[in-house]
């Protein structure tokens, strides 16, 4: 069965520093992996996805993620954090049933400290 884990409930980082939000996955077959962001009182916004190809995927708002097959990880990264990046981040994996169903992690709250 497909699943994802976000080991950190909360990540704090100083403005201007690099940030990493961690995600590990478990799938049978090739993984389709996604990152979403949720700002307060809003729905989820798509950031980026890995389907195939380059292990480094670039997405919206300067975010990128690195797919690492040997470590079964798909960590979200940004070279220089902004206060406006403070939000709830979700990793998701496509499940092999249904209609492009996604299984979501429990989320990581990122706080960027001015």
């Amino acid at each position, binding site marked *: 069965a497909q699943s994802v884990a976000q080991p950190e*409930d909360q990540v704090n980082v100083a403005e201007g520093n690099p940030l990493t939000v961690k995600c590990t996955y478990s799938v049978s077959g090739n993984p*389709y992996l*996604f990152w*979403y962001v949720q700002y307060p*009182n*809003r*729905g*989820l*916004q*798509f950031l980026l*996805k890995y*389907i195939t190809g380059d292990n480094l995927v670039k997405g919206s708002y300067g975010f990128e993620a690195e797919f690492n097959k040997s470590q079964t990880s798909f960590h979200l990264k940004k070279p220089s954090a902004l206060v406006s990046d403070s939000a709830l981040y*979700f990793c998701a994996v*496509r499940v092999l049933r*249904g*209609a*492009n*169903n*996604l*299984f*979501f*992690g*429990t*989320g990581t709250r990122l706080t960027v400290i001015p």
Partner: protein
Amino acid sequence: DVKVTQSSRYLVKRTGEKVFLECVQDMDHENMFWYRQDPGLGLRLIYFSYDVKMKEKGDIPEGYSVSREKKERFSLILESASTNQTSMYLCASSLLSLRGHEQFFGPGTRLTVL
């Protein structure tokens, strides 16, 4: 831009009431989804639909039903609301495809059942 709208941002209902949550998407997507979001649990799939009048149970369908009479509209129904259904409800849509198409989310409905 894809737009997914939900009928209410905030809703307060009493135990035992029948509750309708409406979702409309404007991008002619085949797939539509209903999730609930709870702190520490992430997003959990309630029901999904890949075509008009088609519906499939997700991971937590108990206490809910859905209706999809038109392609653009997907309704979530709580037949008899209970306090444990107090939650944030998110609707999403996506293309029907074997590829990993991302889901697009509405702003959410925060439902409180008293």
